[in-house]
């Protein structure tokens, strides 16, 4: 339950930064917080009190955490990083034209 709470708070914070802040870089940060909240939740939720799912040589099989969500989260992180990089690039490009990264001053984003 604690995990869910923290997830909701982080998710809402990220969404708030994305929606309400006018600085485009801050928006991207918000987007990343939002994604990170989901990753965090997945890892925390799949924790059943076991170990990381890596066998150790000479040791017997003990209680493992689920490896699948961890692998999926790894994929998600990489994808999130790539999209963030693309977005930041576009913001750099837009800055060349407008000399600002403030959303309120860039009329074209609204329509």
């Amino acid at each position: 339950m604690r995990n869910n709470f923290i997830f909701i708070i982080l998710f809402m914070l990220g969404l708030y930064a994305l929606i309400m802040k006018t600085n485009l870089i801050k928006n991207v940060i918000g987007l990343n917080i939002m994604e990170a909240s989901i990753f965090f939740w997945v890892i925390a939720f799949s924790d059943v009190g076991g170990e990381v799912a890596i066998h150790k040589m000479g040791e017997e099989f003990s209680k493992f955490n689920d490896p699948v969500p961890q692998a999926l989260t790894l994929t998600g992180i990489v994808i999130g990083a790539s999209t963030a990089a693309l977005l930041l690039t576009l913001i750099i490009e837009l800055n060349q034209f407008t000399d600002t990264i403030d959303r309120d001053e860039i009329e074209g984003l609204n329509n």
Partner: protein
Amino acid sequence: MALLWQQFLASFSFESYFPLLAEVGVILTLITALAAWNYIKEYKFWYYILTLIYLISTVVVILTTDWFFFLFAWEMVTLTTTFLLAWSSWKLVKQYFVIQFTGSSILLFAALAANALGYTEIAAIDSVLLQFVLIIGMATKSGIFIFHFWLPPIHSEAPSPVSAILSGWVVKLGYIFLLKIIPIESGNTMLYLLGIAMVVYGGWQAVRSADLKIMLAYSTVSQLGFIALAIGTGGELAFLGAVLFIIAHGFAKTTLFITSGILQREYGSRVVYDFKGAIFKRPLTSLAVIISFLSLAGLVFSAGYNAKYLISSAQLPGLLTKVVFFGFALISAIYSLRILYWIFIVDEDYSNFADKLKKALNSYQIYSTDILAILFGTLGVLIVAFWPEMPGDMLEYLVDYDFNIIAGVRDSIIYILLAVYLIHNNAGFKVKVRDHLSLERYLRSALDFIFSMSRKNVKFDTDKIFETVFYNTIFNTSKKIHDFFYQDLTIQLLWIPVFLSILLLWQQIYSYF
């Protein structure tokens, strides 16, 4: 695929007079195609391809009983005729297309409603409301009164062979459709009244105009009124009259529009007064004009007479009917005979008549296809005039029918005398030479008329009104809606949590309502 083709073939019905009408349509199209050979100079190939598609589509429209194929074929007719108009000007295309499309959408809706109400095939429809909707759609497409406003400007501005197609046959498709859906027993009162209005209004406008093509276009309105009136009356006799009228008017109007093209080319004018002495200069053309106009006027021994006689005898007998029909016939006679009057006037020096005739005959050689077209058209008019029962078994009922030639001759003489008197004095008509008739001007004058009724002496900028009604209101309204939703990125993105929470709480919300 085979399924569609079989369904298509199975949808054809060859009952009663519809095959005859389809045949006539084909003949008329061929006649106009003949006339177009010299008239159409550019992209001749495409013109004939379009005409071919048009030809096939008209046959389908007339014969099919399936709503889908009917609408499909009719839209094909609309499209092809729209493209044919492109040979004159783009503006006409635009206007024609908008109007026809509006009619089509009403018709589409009506067809779907008919389908939903159980009329899965095109046949007589009992529901008055449905009839009403169908007539409205048909009125827009075929120019029944109130919705006729587009017809004279477009028919008069189109190139002559295209006018011949439009006026000769395309507008009649609507009436053929009405023949199918209006029950023969009861008729339709609204249509009847509209028909009367059309006859009077179209006739009056035709009398007032001296431009040949505009006059022809208005006379189309007037004559179509007779068909609407006949269908509205109901009864076998009236329907037969309507069919005969459609055929007769088709031949006559096609011929007349083609001749108007010839005359326009030879005289360099469209005004009736310029055709002085045409009978001597262009005997063959003039003869065709004379015969066709006699048919339009409904004088005895003409195609129009037979049809009008059938229609009038289907009415309730009585003095009023007689008087009313007498008036109708007189109106047609006036505008028809006026041009004959001018054709016969001779005020030129004909000392070397033989040379001139020779010159004229030479020019006939060049335009031989035109002459052929006129001859065929005139032949059609004559056949309907003298052997109305000839077209086949469909009209066998007419074999025994007594057309009362004596009364016809009597009436005709009265018409001629009255008409010649009125024309000769030229009083009271205020004949106007309108060289150009456009839809905008037409609508503007209508708007002027409406506003002049409500507020006297206020000059409206009708251009502005036109713009406002058709465009600015729509534009501004949608602009307002657009701006309301597109506030800024924050509000736009805010829809995401809003929508998400609505969906997440949907069970509570749903149970609450």
